[in-house]
């Protein structure tokens, strides 16, 4: 029952987030243009690799703190929400210079992911219950370092891809 109420609470949070995001999307007033074709497998792979780096980094930073079972899986699932939100924020900010928009988007991602990691770490754990849950500051630091590593790794992956193909 407890698990059920937990997931329904999560659903409510997501619904609230969607409700907040929707008016933001309509605020620009311009029609949304769909991409000509679905994002190419190459870019998906590169993004996936960068996210994987970020997840490993966060996991390494929090490995001495209490984390739920399948913590890496939780982090991956978290990115299924935060990465599209990051792209959405880029779309909202596209009247700015790309570098500034990406900076703001990354900053927002650090904050949101930091809080989400903190939230995830509050989930009851079965294996490492003797350890203390990480503080909000530690979660934000982990998110910052993870995102920085991912942001640095992404151009490196792209240049490797450009050289390889």
């Amino acid at each position, binding site marked *: 029952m407890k698990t059920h109420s937990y997931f329904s609470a999560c659903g409510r949070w997501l619904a*609230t987030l969607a409700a907040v995001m929707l008016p933001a999307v309509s605020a620009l*007033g311009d029609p949304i243009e769909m991409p000509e074709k679905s994002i190419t497998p190459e870019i998906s792979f590169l993004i996936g690799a960068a996210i994987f780096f970020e997840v490993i980094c966060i996991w390494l930073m929090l490995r001495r703190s209490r984390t739920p079972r399948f913590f890496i899986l939780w982090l991956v699932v978290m990115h299924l929400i935060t990465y599209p939100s990051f792209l959405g924020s880029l779309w909202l900010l596209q009247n700015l*210079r*790309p570098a500034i928009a*990406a900076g703001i988007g990354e900053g*927002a991602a650090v904050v949101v992911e930091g809080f989400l990691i903190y*939230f995830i770490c509050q989930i009851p754990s079965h294996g490492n219950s003797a350890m203390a849950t990480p503080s909000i500051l530690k979660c934000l630091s982990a998110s910052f370092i993870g995102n920085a590593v991912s942001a640095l790794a992404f151009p490196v992956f792209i240049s490797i891809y450009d050289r390889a193909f």
Partner: protein
Amino acid sequence: MKKPRAILFFALIATVVVIVKIATAEPHYRGRALTSWLQQCSDMPMDETQRLAEARQAVCAMPRDQVLPRLLQMIETREDTVSPWIIAKCNEFHLHFLKWRSAEDLQLLGIAGFEALGTNASPALTELTDLLRDPGHAFTAVRCLVYLRQPAEPSMCQALTNANPRVRQFAAQQLFWVSDDAETFVAHLTNSLNDPDGNVRFEAIQGIGAQTQCPDLVIPILIRTLERQDGNISAEAASALAGFGTNAMRAFVVLSNAAVSGNFSATAYQAMQTLATLAPERALPIVLQNFHCADRDRRHGALLLLCRYPLKNPAIRSAIEEAVRDEDPKIAEFARNWITGQYRDEHSVNNQFPNDPTCGGKTLGQWLEFDRNPDGSFREDVHDAIVHMGTNAIPGLLARLVYVEPPYGLRTPEAIELNVRAICALIALGRQAIPALPQLQALMDSTNSETVRFAMIASSGTGSNAISLFLKGMTNRFADVRNEAAANMTEGVGAQFPDLRRQAIPLFMNLLNDPDEDVRMNATNQLKEIAPEAAARAGIK
């Protein structure tokens, strides 16, 4: 769990609010952001007046105190190192839903905004003037300043002395739009005549020369510039003098000197042209003097002018006829073409074929003048008229087939058009054209490749009789005739008579060793299609 949930909730809300606040910071009108309206201003072609006016109206309708800072921000944008990379990668990976703009794009949007606002943007005058001192933004600033009209005059004059020659050139070119007083305008541009950059000096003299309402002020400046022998700047001064009519007669001596002295240049040509405009009769001896001199360029310039001289007299006519025998082939060809054109204007082509048959009240020549279908064939009524005239039309058509323009026998585009119409008419006659075959056969021995080709193609309508002409064409001395004949063996006449075209196989074998590469290639392809076994024996795979 309650505390973390609340923290998370507020963190999410705060992040979303911050992003939305930044994203919607621009002024909006009818639900669309300023950038979106500016993009419409910038993208619309000038003929889309309604949409352009709509976008400009929208920009003007937004609060000016919010619009101007954003426009200034746009034109002040600098390119950073990361943004071009992001834009390039988004394009590379087809992420077109992210419409990033380069710094230059944003500057162009800013300029479009100032254009839309016009004089309403005058509160930004100080900032734009300050930007003139910034080497990276001076050109964008001067482009915006021009839309502010009269209040921007001092700033535009300041731009005339900018360190960047591109800025000075633009300012000199556009100063007219911000100046109310012609005398002040001329005074400002007179300083620019000493600019070290030639383009700036050119724009300055062009601007000054356009002030035809101030002859007393402008003509002396134009004369001084003309005397300076400053390349195309002096030429422009000479050209501008023509706009002052009789007021410019005081420049006659200077123009005459420029027309005859020193090396022949654009200035000398313009001076001659202006003299011819101002006083054609007085100028004629000068033009003729240039025409009779040893310098080839000078003769050519004089001939160009004589051909469109305001007066027509025997001296001009005989000078042009003399040019036909000029030692310079370019001059001779120009003169021949001009005289041919004059002859064409004075003599109708149809009058040169007096014995044309008639049908339905129209002569053969009149029927041939009708527009053809896009595929080159005649309209149905024209086709029927030609068929109706039958063999009576043959002499007229053969005469047109070999027509070259008098008096020098030039195969001009007009003559070729007539030749082609004759070919089409002979083909339209079909088997009625058989009596023309002996003459066509004779034309196959012509020394002119086009005549041979036209005769060969004109025989196409006569069915199997045409094969002999095409076979003869395959051994002609001209490569383009051999090529045409070979091509017709698979696509044209040859395709209708596959048995007869087998006679062409030995000729194709010879063409495989033709000196012309195109003919060899064509023969190879044709032979493979007509006789694959012979092609295989010749080693063609």
